[in-house]
């Protein structure tokens, strides 16, 4: 009996005396919300945005008036080197698992991001669901030093604004580490990233005063899509260009669109559904031709002008106009990417590879040059489903009376 008891006691003490390997209490952690990486003469300048627990996690609403996050910056020859050096300043262990965004300075992005991403994807602590961003014409550290309204934590604000704008506006890229690396390593396609930039007074964005006024002095805003050629940033796309990328990549959930109304003036639409399909065909010379097929459902949201909507034919007119416009502008935007950057961010090469694996071999080596000249067509099919709560445009009604 005693022996048994002693045995049990020893086993219990085993669990208690050995200490708890890899145990870390919540209040030993400095929760890193965002990571910014810039180029520096000494290697990399790494900026971390760390949550200030007393302020951000306080349910009573941060009454002490402190800032919800703190940023630390350190320089190292590698990213982990810089992070390690940072520990001389931070009171707690940096915990990277909950990073919402990784911001890369434009200078670094232009030089190539693969060395940085190696560390990011090698580190077991990091999850892969955060978004990658490029700081347009700025250092990443600047982006992380802005206090944002609404969301206590700027990184959270960035994260959710990407989610919302991607879903409702479709001119931003929702690119996670996983996606970026997949595109990077795949032959016949190039990755993109979303861009952010500062808007307004750049000096005082880092103080709580920034959100003391109704219209914040400094805001972080999205800056279109950054085009990468392999791991190097080559240029930026404006809003229509960014939307085109999302249309072709079938990333559009919902967005808006304007079109000249057949009766004069403008008509506004909200796109409620968009499916894209990439078709590869060989022409007479055996050269690949690409057709992007779009199936779009839209609702009419406004008509600024006159149009007799009692007549179903006018809706068909609008649809036809829209389709033509889509075909034209998307083709143009794609051509711009083809000629200006020569980076196949649409994955045309990938589609060719899939359909004609043998032919692909002849293109593989110099796909980038072929991409510049390859023929791309856009064929869109647009259906207007609803025209809203009233039928005739107000202007039309006034005129008829």
């Amino acid at each position, binding site marked *: 009996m005693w022996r048994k008891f002693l045995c049990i006691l020893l086993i*219990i003490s085993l*669990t*208690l005396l*050995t200490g*708890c390997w*890899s*145990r*870390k*209490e*919540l*209040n030993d*952690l400095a*929760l890193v*919300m965002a990571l910014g990486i810039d180029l520096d003469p000494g290697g990399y300048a790494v900026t971390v945005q760390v*949550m200030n*627990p*007393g302020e*951000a*996690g*306080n*349910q009573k609403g941060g009454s002490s008036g402190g800032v919800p996050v703190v940023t630390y910056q350190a320089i190292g020859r590698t990213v982990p080197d810089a992070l390690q050096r940072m520990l001389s300043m931070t009171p707690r262990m940096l*915990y990277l*698992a*909950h990073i*919402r965004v990784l911001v890369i300075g434009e200078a670094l992005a232009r030089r190539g991001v693969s060395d940085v991403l190696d560390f990011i994807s090698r580190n077991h*602590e990091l*999850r892969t669901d955060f978004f990658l961003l490029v700081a347009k014409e700025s250092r990443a550290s600047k982006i992380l030093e802005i206090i944002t309204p609404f969301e206590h*934590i700027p990184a*959270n604000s960035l994260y959710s604004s990407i989610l919302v704008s991607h879903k409702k506006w479709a001119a931003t890229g929702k690119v996670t580490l996983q996606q970026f690396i997949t595109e990077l390593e795949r032959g016949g396609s190039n990755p993109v990233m979303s861009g952010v930039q500062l808007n307004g007074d750049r000096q005082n964005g880092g103080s709580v005063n920034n959100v003391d006024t109704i219209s914040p002095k400094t805001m972080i805003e999205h800056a279109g899509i950054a085009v990468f050629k392999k791991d190097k940033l080559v240029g930026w796309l404006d809003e229509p260009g960014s939307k085109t990328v999302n249309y072709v990549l079938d990333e559009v959930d919902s967005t808006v669109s304007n079109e000249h109304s057949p009766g004069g003036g403008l008509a506004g639409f909200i796109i409620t559904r968009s499916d894209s399909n990439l078709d590869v065909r060989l022409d007479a010379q055996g050269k690949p031709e690409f057709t992007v097929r779009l199936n779009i459902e839209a609702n009419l949201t406004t008509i600024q002008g006159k149009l007799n909507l009692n007549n179903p034919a006018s809706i068909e007119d609008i649809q036809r106009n829209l389709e033509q416009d889509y075909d034209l502008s998307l083709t143009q935007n794609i051509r711009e990417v083809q000629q200006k950057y020569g980076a196949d961010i649409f994955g045309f090469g990938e589609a060719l590879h899939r359909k004609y694996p043998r032919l692909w071999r002849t293109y593989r080596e110099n796909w980038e040059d072929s991409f510049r000249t390859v023929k791309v067509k856009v064929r869109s099919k647009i259906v207007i489903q609803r025209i809203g709560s009233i039928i005739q445009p107000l202007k039309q009604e006034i005129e008829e009376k």
Partner: protein
Amino acid sequence: MTQLENAGSPQEKLPDSLSAFIEGIQVRLGTSTDIIYRFITLGPSSVVVVYIEGMADPQALMKAIHEDAGQFNEFSEPQPERCLKLLQDRTLSLGKVGGITNYTEVETELLAGNSVIYIDGSTHALSAGTEALKQRSVEDAVSQSVVRGPREGFTESLRENTALIRRRIQNPKLRIEQRKLGEQTQTNVAVMYIEGNADPEVLQELRRRLDAAKLDSVLESNYIEEMIQDQRYSPFPTVYNTERPDSAASALLEGRIAILVEGTPFILVVPALLVQFFQSSEDYYQRSDFATLVRMLRFFCFAIALLTPSFYIAITTFHQEMIPTTLLISLIGQREGIPFPAFLEAFIMEITFEILREAGIRLPKSIGQSVSIVGTLVIGQAAVDAGLVSAAMVIVVSITAIANFTLPAFNVGISVRMLRFVLMVIAASFGLFGIIIALIILGLHLCSLESMGIPYMTSFAPMRRQSQKDTFIRLSRRTMKKYFGQN
């Protein structure tokens, strides 16, 4: 003094004189003041009526004797044997009257509350059933109350309890086997079953274990439970107990065997399966769809009560990456300034709750109320305000405690309470890996348990398709043609 010397032998015959008879009783039962000797004369004979005050109610007996005393006057000389015969056949219109020839029987009858009548000169005596049924009336089952369904619960009287069951099952095949257990207490224990429904092998096994049980005393059914359970070292109960006659009846109909013990309203039911502890008799008195949902809720609550604190400890100290970011931010904010590690924090709160709970049971009802109010305030508000524990931990502990009370069987709730602490220690040392390993071991342990030779996890392992109609879910009575327990 010959009587004294012979007193040791159990089958000792009764003497033929009144004084020797009384002396014999006094040797055996002592001169306890509650043993009453009523001397009366019936004609020429002296008669003594012996009973234990409080145990026996000899009023009816005395009345009958007095009313009939006249007929004994015709005897001119003492004729004890005839007298006794007359008493037995004519005078005593009582339920139970029997002849006694030795002292062992005298003892038994007296201790059972019967009266013993002895006539001077006779070599045997009469026992009359005067058992005083002074007992609690049938009241609500306190420990297993229901919203809909019969309210009555068992009482402390064995006879009353068997009657409560018989009244529900008027099946001629309902059998009661009675025996006395406990060297000193000589407690009546009844084994009830329905012949044909109960598995004869289980019945045989139960009889064997009851025979083998060497008990000094039996004051409650747990005395027997501990002797007959299959596995001594298990946190899980392998014998079911109930205070409700309806659930006992339903168990008998399912082919289980009930063990009733004199002096306690809690009867035992064997064999007991794990799922049984999750089923309330009310499940069968409510709509089947609702009963199904409630039953699933109980299984869910079982998991909550068992795992929440350990899960919380494991996740917040080892696996922070699994917490959604916004929740983590809030948790970190709450834990700011808490001096204890999460495990200690949880441990303190759980222990505090156990203290309050134990105190609540022991205290008189009126004080218990105020203690629980103070307790809630202390735990809920002051501890958080003082920065001793985080608000999230209070939520964890309270949801655990409340979930624990949804389990209809109190004893499986105890198992959960004990295992919760074990799991907390494991979670604090090994994180989620530890919890998973512990759960696997727990599963293996449950599968290895048996109740009266029947696997404890029956209807899961071994899997029984037919039983699934009434395990996690309860299908409508139409789909269940008969009770299928049968084990």
